[in-house]
């Protein structure tokens, strides 16, 4: 199945959900002013479902947008990639989203490209190929955002349903009770197309994580620190990394100029600026890459967060964005864990 049929199938599901009254609104990406311009939209009218497009130019975190702008009292369907779905689950844990009101339609996603990278029109990225203007060719990994190259979640198994592009008919896996409501509203049968292929993407994630992190691990602790402090010297304190991050949900943030902790108006900001955010977020970092995509100074910030997250994840056995019942280590840390790895954290 190609990208455009995939889009149509998703449109069909969304439109059926609106028509049946299962949800009041849908949050998804629609086409903007041209084929590279993919923008978020809330849709309430089922006729507008046809505006939804599935491409690999998706910008922004729908989890963040849902928490920030979604109507808390409404039932909302969201057309998610894994990183959106995982963000929604993390935000639900933090009481920023009411999971009961959210229906997640999961898309298979093997990474996104920058819209300014006009190498391919009507792009859809698969595990080892791309589809562009209806043609399939081998994937050039430089097309992918840096975080996406390291992503090990091509399938949104944490969404209510996950839909695979690469089967005829589209494969639909029901993951939750809500997923059953979705397929019933859309009059589809679950598990239509069987298993979705993800091995290539998982192999790539492992390889890319090793490469990216090895570069850091190859440095002495001092060099590594200096590398990041030099990167932070470029920071112009736009707060874009914070604003774009689905885990940074606080309305009242320690980094704000009126909170005294970080000196107002100092540029580059004190090193603490980035370190505070890192400490607050690293346990739950989703490697969604929003921070890096938003950085006007080209700081490769997702690499730092992702790498630190991986270290913490190994210590605390915490995988964010999977199970709503499992809370993040920062909120549940035990006395024993504070001394983990011979480091006194308390």
């Amino acid at each position, binding site marked *: 199945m190609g990208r455009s049929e995939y889009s149509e199938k998703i449109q069909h599901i969304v439109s059926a959900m609106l028509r049946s009254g299962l949800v009041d609104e849908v949050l998804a990406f629609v086409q903007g002013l041209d084929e590279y311009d993919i923008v978020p939209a809330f849709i309430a009218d089922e006729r507008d479902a046809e505006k939804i497009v599935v491409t690999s130019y998706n910008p922004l975190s729908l989890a963040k947008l849902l928490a*920030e702008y979604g109507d808390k009292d409404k039932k909302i369907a969201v057309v998610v990639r894994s990183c959106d779905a995982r963000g929604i689950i993390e935000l639900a844990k933090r009481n920023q989203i009411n999971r009961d009101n959210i229906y997640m339609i999961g898309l298979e996603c093997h990474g996104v490209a920058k*819209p300014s990278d006009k190498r391919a029109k009507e792009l859809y990225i698969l595990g080892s190929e791309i589809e562009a203007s209806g043609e399939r060719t081998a994937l050039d990994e430089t097309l992918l955002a840096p975080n996406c190259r390291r992503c090990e979640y091509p399938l949104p198994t944490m969404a209510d349903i996950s839909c695979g592009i690469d089967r005829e008919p589209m494969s639909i896996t029901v993951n939750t009770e809500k997923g059953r409501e979705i397929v019933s509203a859309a009059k589809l049968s679950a598990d239509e197309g069987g298993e979705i292929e993800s091995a290539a993407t998982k192999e790539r994630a492992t390889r890319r994580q090793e490469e990216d992190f090895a570069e850091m691990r190859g440095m002495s602790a001092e060099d590594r620190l200096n590398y990041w402090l030099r990167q932070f010297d470029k920071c112009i304190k736009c707060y874009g990394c914070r604003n774009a991050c689905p885990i940074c949900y606080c309305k009242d943030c320690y980094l704000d100029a009126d909170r005294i902790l970080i000196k107002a108006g100092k540029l580059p900001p004190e090193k603490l600026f980035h370190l505070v955010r890192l400490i607050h977020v690293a346990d739950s970092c989703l490697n969604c890459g929003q921070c890096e995509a938003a950085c006007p100074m080209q700081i490769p910030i997702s690499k730092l967060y992702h790498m630190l997250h991986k270290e913490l994840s190994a210590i605390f056995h915490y995988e964010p964005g999977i199970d709503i019942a499992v809370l993040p280590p920062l909120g549940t840390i035990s006395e024993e864990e504070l001394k983990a790895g011979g480091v006194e954290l308390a």
Partner: protein
Amino acid sequence: MLSFIPTICPYCGAGCGILLAAKDGNAVGTMPWSRHQISEGRLCIKGWNAHQFIGHQDRLKKPLIKDNGSFREATWDEALNLVANKLKEIKGKDGPDAIAVLSSAKCTNEENYLIQKFARAVIGTNNVDHCARLCHASTVAGLLAAFGSGAMTNSIADLGQADCIFIIGSDTTSQHPLIARRVIMAKERGAKIIIADPKGIQLCNVADVYLQQNPGSDVALLNGMMKVIIDHGLEDKEFIQERTEGFQELLQTIHDYPLDKVERITGVPAADIEKAALIYAEAKSSAILFAMGITQHSTGTDNVMSIANLAMLTGNVGRAGSGINPLRGQNNVQGACDMGALPNVFPGYQAVTDAEKRAKIAEVWGVAELPSQVGLTVVEMINAASEGKVKAMYITGENPMVSDPDIGHVKQGLENLQFLVVQDIFLTETAKLADVVLPSACWAEKEGTFTNTERRVQRIRRAIDPPGESRPDWEIVCELARVVGAGQLFPFTSPSEIFDELRKVTPQYAGMNYERLNQPDGLQWPCPDESHPGTPILHTKQFTRGKGKFHAVAYREPAEEPDSQYPYILTTGRVMSQFHTGTMTRRSPALNNEFPEAFVEVNPEDASKLGIEDGDWVEVASRRGKIEIKALVSDKVKPGVLFIPFHFAECAANVLTNPALDPIAKIPELKVCAVAIQATKQSK
């Protein structure tokens, strides 16, 4: 329900794309617009918070009329009738040139077009200007003389391809952050970065050479660099031969600038000047970025012509990654100039003194004749008001009571007017002096186009309705024209109709229309016909004027030099989270909290000599006035130099600044004046 509207940031001239979140008639958030050509999904702090002032309680919602010294609310009919009658009365008694109009670089192209048309076709005066006079008037004059076009030669994106970027007089990360991004991208590709600025800037962290020249010594510095290039035989002989004229005159002049002399004038070590010159000349493609540090001088036009000399000398014009890139400060200051909101030119830089151009435009506008005499510039208007020659002013979206030099004099001038009407979104310091205040819509509340610093014309889109009875500026001008009895010249019912007229008289915009502009990339002028794709790089094959012209420029001292009474040099500028006179940013909490108050930056050496500690209150005085302000002890300025950001009305740098003008561009010398500083009461 919530919607995301793609539009353009209202702050600097970079013209970044934003998605404005609107819900129930309110602008509730801003997000980066990923597809946008310039910002590519990034924003600076101002962009991320561009929605914050929109719904502020201080927004003007009704017309105001001043009776016995205080404002009362009025209907549009009453306010517009009063304005119309007063303007007619003054025009009848003292002639059209007794009226002066300030247009606005915050307004759209369509609005600037209408405002200058109102001044010329309805009032009958060329007394129309705007704040470009205070920022890049010298760029327009200097580059027009050298190249035949006053605009940025290259595009923002192609800066990333430069092998050397020379930044002189631009605090790029603070004032044009998304252009600074391209500098970082070039640097990470291996480009060399040269910075010349009297004040240390954040990009110094990535610079290969930093030259801290004395304020006002730029011509000497640039001539010194050119001498090094000639002495090393690094000039581009072929380019000079084929594409330029006036080289011999330049040669004679720059031979007077040996490095020891240049070191003495600029305060920059000769070795650093040499290093910078060699890096610039040896790179395959070198781009120059500059801003107010070059332009706001009594030698502003000379400075710009010197920059043009340097670029032509090394053949760095007309290719990607090269060129001269004046960074325009306001979202639409390029457009306001393009639209002829200037006293000497009609739209498209067509001289008002050219009878043929006058006749052509009069025909399109349907008027018998248009004024032929060059009008007054910003500072000249204030002088004329003060002398009683200008009797009424119509000010739209400008705040000279904070932005202009020597504010004491500005106030006296404006108070001396018989009639002042101010059209704005807030009751600014200037609006407070008005007889009538007309409430206008802001950027999120109207349709139109902005032209960014790289000549890119981009659509802005109405996301919400204007508050109360406020209306878009274009509607107000059309309505005022109707009340005055000139409604037939302003029959417009939409900005798109206005655009269709303005493209008829603006050759650079001739090929554009709203349909073509309704895509994320907009169009870069010149765009002469509807099949033309727009022009990313100017002067590729030949200069707009034919040959590029070298101007032999000798160093002249600033108008005011330090002396025993005023022993320090004051230079002014801006900070990263405030914008211009603070009308919008000081009402945006996230922006104001970063820099809530003014400060004077003092070198530690001077501070210890004067007994001033960080945070102390000090008095800074010039021949024009004095202010009390907090001291910030910092090594970003060198001994003998002070820096004050000009955003803060309560301790306004422009109380102190010198209104001395560049003789050609009439830009005031906001960047250099002589001041005294002393400690007053201690902090805490």
